[in-house]
């Protein structure tokens, strides 16, 4: 038991428990789904009882919640926000628009699948998902964290070239700093 390197140490158990029960969310609310965030956070549905709290800046945040469609112009800001967050960090796609484009699937300036540009850990489907669905998405994320499967940040770093290629395809004037900032 003492030499088993794959065994979970007690520190890991404490860390994953704390990570699971303390999710600070930066809600990127430019899509229409942003209207579902206030009832989720306030007294009707009260997400704070699960340790889910809004965060003021990306530097302090753990979860990036993309609420709905992303225009090409906002995608650039989302990527910038995501890269400012500190690992371990998680992305949640919210609504049909982040899965396949939803009702904007043939629009000229929105992206269809968020998964091609950022590593999404949990998708919540629906147009738009109710607060119960949002909270169940967070519970799913908590499960993934405690199982050690929410490794979006590592996936992004490992496949950075592929993500950059996809991002560069849709964003014409790419003048952003490197990843290490």
């Amino acid at each position, binding site marked *: 038991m003492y030499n088993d390197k794959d065994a979970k140490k007690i520190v890991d158990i*404490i*860390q994953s*428990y*704390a*990570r699971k*029960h*303390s999710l*600070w969310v930066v809600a990127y609310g430019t899509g229409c789904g942003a209207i579902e965030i206030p009832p989720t956070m*306030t*007294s009707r549905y*009260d997400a*704070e*009882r*699960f*340790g889910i709290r*809004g965060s*003021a*800046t990306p*530097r*302090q945040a*753990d979860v990036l919640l993309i609420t709905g469609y992303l225009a090409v112009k906002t995608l650039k800001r989302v990527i910038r926000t995501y890269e*400012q*967050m*500190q*690992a*371990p960090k998680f992305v949640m796609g919210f609504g049909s628009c982040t899965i396949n484009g939803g009702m904007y699937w043939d629009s000229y300036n929105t992206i269809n699948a968020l998964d091609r540009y950022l590593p999404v850990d949990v998708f919540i489907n629906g147009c738009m998902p109710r607060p119960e669905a949002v909270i169940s998405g967070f519970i799913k994320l908590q499960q993934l964290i405690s199982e050690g499967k929410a490794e979006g*940040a590592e996936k992004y770093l490992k496949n950075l070239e592929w993500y950059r290629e996809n991002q560069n395809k849709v964003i014409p004037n790419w003048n952003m700093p490197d990843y290490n*900032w």
Partner: protein
Amino acid sequence: MEINWSSVIGIVATPVIAFIVGVLYGGAVRKITARVQNRYGPPITQNLFDIIKLYSKKTAIQHGVMQHLGPVFAITASVTSLYFIPVIKDSPYFQNFSFNGDLIFLLYMMVFGSLGMALGAGQTGNPNSAIGVSRGLSQMVGYEIPFVLALVAIMIQFKTTSLNELLAVQDHFTNWIIFQSPLAFVAGILAFLGMMHYAPFDVVIAPAEIASGPPSEFGGKYLGLMMTSGSIFAFVKLVLFVDIFLGGASDFITLIIKTFLLYMIPVLTGIVSPRFRTEQSILFFWKWPTFIGILAIIVVVLNG
């Protein structure tokens, strides 16, 4: 050289106790806020989870030496001021470094953490940090004046600057300084509202307004260090006020009861209040609290 083991144990135990009590108080405040807003609220240990999570972040970005040192300054100031306050009255374990004249030293030491944070936040280059720092330092000029006036009134009245001697004066319930010098207590408690940074005086950390102000560029371990320091510093301020005005505490249960009741004054004021603008906040402290503080000194001097 003979080692005084009881003080060694005290030196090790004091910051740990302060941290645990401060963190649980922070969680209790979140729970109480939630109940007032008709929510269920997070568990009382939520702040502890937050701090552990922040310490276990895998990356922590920093933009320079001062940003690295800012949170370190903050926690140094918190723990140092804690060591100069007798936490438990007449206990051999918790005297730590308290000495004659420690009130004046504490007045300086309690500002040190904020100044360190200001230097650290200044280097991040975030405009919200700069606004937060300027707000924080302006507000500090506001509430330090009634606070110092209240302390000076007490120093003149009891002709001492030592916390231990002040505790010795308050040997009975009727001799508490809150009853011997009520004007100084009023000035002090109004300054205390500003020191705790709850609404309506939360102009520094205004999350919806300036994106949490000074710590807006701090993430991961730096933010964890700042939260740790904040928890300890809340305990420091509470124990200081209990020692000065409420007769100290001779055991832990009394300490918890007194500090918690004192803590509820800024918290409950905060829950039902909106936020002042910075100049309103400073003007508030420069009007009635300052006037009452001056009045306290005049009364003390006239009574001779």
